[in-house]
């Protein structure tokens, strides 16, 4: 094989740790007794609830709508009765308004029929995507219809599907590509029609040869000659938007700009699958494939769960935790957040919940910066994490804009390589909160 594509600056290669779940087919988890559906799962203002306590809802019913600004509607993940409108624990925002549904486990799952979308125009397709509550499920949660409506002056010529899945442990996108390649390619065709582009690259890290083969086959069959699969080097953060665009097109997205500035739109492969569901099947986004892995869980799995499923119910379903469990992380080990509660519900953007044993985490105490410069080498954005951290520790976080803190996307490469084990990315996050933009 010729040299694999990758981005030139920075990056690290943490242990991939995907073997635990890469071979496990997506398993449908039974509907739990209760679901807590958070109203603000996307970037933008939370939804306004459309139901009140005691209402009965059917699977796929609209229960939260957008009333102001950027947003994306919320649907009932299962049939049931509204138990309460309250607040839920949230991995990043501590707490968030939510709707709790007492599920009706006797109700048959809703069936969706395939419809022909070839006659639909751009506006109709966008309307379907918006109504289905599609957001970027890779993690950011940016409303998809907004991403598909780039500023009129930008000339979009390329769609990129992100199948890098560069975070260790997570295999949710990997399984989607293996099990639903044709749906993803059809989803890509829908996006290409909306954007009016005729070039689509699917970027996949080379550690998923089976997914590359499956997607290549599907692209050849249903891509109309316009969808190409690109194998990329296994390097974190290969799946970061700017690095991915640079890898596949050679274009650099300027600071504070969106990919549309260089004529590119990027969607995660799982988001693309959700777009397929929305347009072809008319199914809103209320289920999510989540990787549950780590040596701290009895039975690791790739689970298809209802949005709103509490992590506690997932743990019970998988047989509980092991005695070695030391840390629970929402998201990947590089960018995820440590959890303080099992009551946190799965949202549309949850890709994994990791149950890590003591041997899988590093708890050594951190010390002072020795100015080795490893973080500078590792930073894919060309920043100086050590300087930012030293400023924050000295109580001068508000002066860190000069070091480009707002260009940092918190990939965590700096913390990963730091020989002094300094919490660099955490200090950068703190700097972002305090510094003036």
């Amino acid at each position: 094989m010729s040299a694999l594509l990758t981005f030139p600056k920075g990056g690290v290669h943490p242990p991939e740790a995907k073997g635990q779940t890469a071979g496990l087919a997506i398993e449908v988890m039974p509907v739990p007794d209760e679901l807590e559906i958070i109203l603000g799962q996307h970037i933008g203002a939370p939804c306004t609830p459309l139901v009140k306590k005691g209402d009965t809802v059917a699977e796929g019913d609209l229960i939260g709508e957008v009333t102001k600004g950027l947003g994306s509607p919320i649907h009932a993940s299962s049939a049931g009765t509204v138990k309460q409108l309250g607040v839920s624990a949230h991995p990043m925002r501590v707490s968030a308004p939510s709707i709790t549904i007492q599920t009706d486990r006797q109700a048959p799952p809703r069936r969706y029929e395939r419809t022909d979308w070839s006659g639909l125009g751009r506006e109709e397709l966008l309307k379907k995507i918006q109504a289905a509550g599609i957001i970027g499920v890779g993690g950011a949660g940016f409303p998809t219809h907004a991403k598909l409506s780039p500023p009129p002056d930008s000339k979009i010529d390329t769609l990129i599907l992100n199948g890098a899945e560069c975070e260790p442990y997570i295999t949710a996108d990997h399984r989607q590509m293996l099990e639903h390649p044709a749906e993803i390619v059809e989803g890509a065709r829908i996006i290409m029609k909306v954007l009016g582009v005729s070039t689509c690259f699917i970027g996949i890290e080379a550690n998923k040869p089976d997914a590359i083969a499956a997607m290549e086959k599907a692209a050849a069959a249903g891509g109309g000659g316009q969808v190409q699969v690109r194998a990329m080097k296994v390097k974190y953060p290969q799946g970061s938007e700017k690095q991915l665009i640079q890898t596949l097109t050679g274009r650099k997205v300027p600071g504070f700009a969106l990919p549309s500035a260089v004529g590119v739109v990027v969607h995660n492969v799982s988001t693309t699958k959700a777009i397929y569901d929305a347009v072809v099947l008319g199914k809103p986004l209320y289920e999510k494939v989540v990787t549950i892995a780590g040596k701290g869980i009895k039975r690791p799995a790739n689970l298809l769960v209802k949005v709103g499923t509490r992590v506690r119910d997932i743990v019970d379903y998988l047989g509980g935790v092991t005695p070695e469990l030391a840390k629970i992380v929402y998201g990947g080990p590089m960018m995820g957040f440590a959890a303080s509660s099992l009551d946190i519900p799965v949202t549309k953007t949850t890709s994994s919940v990791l149950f890590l044993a003591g041997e899988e985490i590093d708890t050594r105490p951190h010390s002072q910066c020795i100015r080795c410069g490893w973080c500078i080498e590792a930073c894919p954005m060309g920043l100086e994490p050590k300087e930012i951290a030293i400023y924050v520790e000295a109580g001068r976080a508000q002066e860190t804009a000069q070091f480009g803190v707002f260009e940092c996307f918190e990939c965590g490469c700096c913390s990963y390589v730091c020989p002094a084990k300094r919490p660099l990315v955490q200090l950068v996050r703190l700097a972002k909160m305090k510094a003036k933009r």
Partner: protein
Amino acid sequence: MWTVVACLVPPLVLSVFVFGIRTLIITAVSVASCVAMEAISQKAMGRKVTVSDGSAVITGMLLAFVIPPGVSYWLPILGAVMAIYIGKHLLGGIGYNIFNPALLARAFLLATFPVAMTSAWLPPLHNTAIFSTLGTAVDAVSTATPLAVLKTQGAAALAAQFGTAPNIYTTFFLGWRPGAIGETSGLLILLGGLYLMYRRYITWHIPVSVLGTIALLSWIFGGPTHFTGDPLLAILSGGAMLGAFFMANDYVTSPTVRTSQLIYGIGVGAITVLIRLKGGYPEGICYAILLMNPVSPVLDRLLKPKRFAPPLGGAK
């Protein structure tokens, strides 16, 4: 840090066979005093005691490596006070010291005990009588380093005493020559340095720029006429190898960005050659590194890493 210590062990072992068992004793005294000094300094300043991180052990070994093998056993104790208490902790502690502690101590010892530090050289042993030099002290001056011979008596005397090319290269590369305890064997230092590179603890930038500059400038200016100097001999003599691989690229006191590291390395190399050829001392790398150390933060401030892509419409 302990990997660096492991890389310094082979030159230490070799020094026992070249200069006798006293090099081991001097190193042991130096390491013990540095570790003790680290603990005392940190206790006295109310800081956390971090002797287990191995950094004081490295300083202790490097301090012993840059002093002559014939000095009194108490000299490294004094050096340790200078290196650890003044050089490291009074100047801010780990991560904040401006100068390389071991070299600062060597400069201090050179200024305060000039006779011992410039004349306590021992000739290499030609048998395994490693205990024969046990009692030797300052007064037992018996030889001069190649660079001192070259400086004071010229190239002919150097050839008479240490042989001619290519034999002299082999002798020097293996380490059988007078010199400071740990600096003599280019081979073992190179192996240690390459191992650190292989493990990605250090990169090539500083060692290559230091040695490259020394070789280039010695070739141009080191001979009787221009371009007749001996570049290979230049990097195999004195502390060039030890300085390039284990002193100049000390994380704390060298720049963090690659371009700055190259400029810094070129600076170290150029000052080294300047001192060797025009200065009062036969060897200059110690002062060259000490002079470039404070330039590191300036270089870091001036030369920033290349950002991914600047924001549209200029910096915000």
